[in-house]
């Protein structure tokens, strides 16, 4: 039920902010996530934002967008490195699941949209997506990943990621205001 609520809220959030994420029917099962599934979602969600950042670094000419994208690429890589080190230590093998699959499906649509834009339209699409994406991921971490994590170290790592994501969201909103001026 908790998962169903989360996905409903996340879907609305994504639809409003980006309109790109489609959740599979499997993702709406009211089942708790396992630690291998959580590890997969965590790595996938971070990698997706690195992929978006790489496009922004390549396409944008706006210094604030480029600076923000560089921060996203570095920070999310740092989170991935620490998550991978932890799952290796714990002997957990990340397992693909409905959520990680739907995240990838959403990414494919977003990448297509971002690649179709240029100039100020690209900057706006990129930063709007960053605001929406971080809101959705924060919600996922708060309402599904942290509550479902069984291993204490994995739970602690997810709790440490939250302030990073919230800081990214505030930063994205700052840049969004500048871009929309």
């Amino acid at each position: 039920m908790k998962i169903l609520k989360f996905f409903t809220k996340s879907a609305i959030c994504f639809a409003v902010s980006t309109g790109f994420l489609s959740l599979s029917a499997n993702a709406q099962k009211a089942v708790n996530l396992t630690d291998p599934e959580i590890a997969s979602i965590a790595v996938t969600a971070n990698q997706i934002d690195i992929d978006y950042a790489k496009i922004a670094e390549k396409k944008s000419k706006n210094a604030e967008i480029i600076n923000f994208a560089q921060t996203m690429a570095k920070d999310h890589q740092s989170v991935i490195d620490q998550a991978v080190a932890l799952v290796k230590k714990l002997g957990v093998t990340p397992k693909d699941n409905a959520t990680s699959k739907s995240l990838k499906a959403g990414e494919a649509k977003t990448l297509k949209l971002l690649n179709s834009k240029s100039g100020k339209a690209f900057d706006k699409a990129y930063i709007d997506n960053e605001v929406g994406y971080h809101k959705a991921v924060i919600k996922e971490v708060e309402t599904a990943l942290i509550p479902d994590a069984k291993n204490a170290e994995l739970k602690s790592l997810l709790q440490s990621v939250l302030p990073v994501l919230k800081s990214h969201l505030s930063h994205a909103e700052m840049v969004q205001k500048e871009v929309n001026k």
Partner: protein
Amino acid sequence: MKNKITELGIKVLLLFPILSLFSCHSSDQQNAQSSHRTDTVVIQQMQFIPASITVKKGDSILWINKDMVDHTVKEEKSNGFYSDTIHVGKTWKMVATDSADYDCSIHPTMKGRIVIK
């Protein structure tokens, strides 16, 4: 033999005040150093903790990055102090000379303040 003992005695007498001078100088240095302390700001959960630190002029401040990501310490006004990247698990130390507002240049929502009392 007697001459050698006299010569040694003269050398010791000459060296004693010189060694004493060095000893006093070293002691003065220690006193000067010990009058300044080092305070710590921990960088954790995307915050400078404490956000505002009050120190005496000449005291040192040590920033410790206990966060998941890299940070910097940069004075908000231009041409101020700048730490360069403080990698995860690393530290940066600075002697505080003036009150100042600072932030993390990587994460501009992170703010801190140094107050000289």
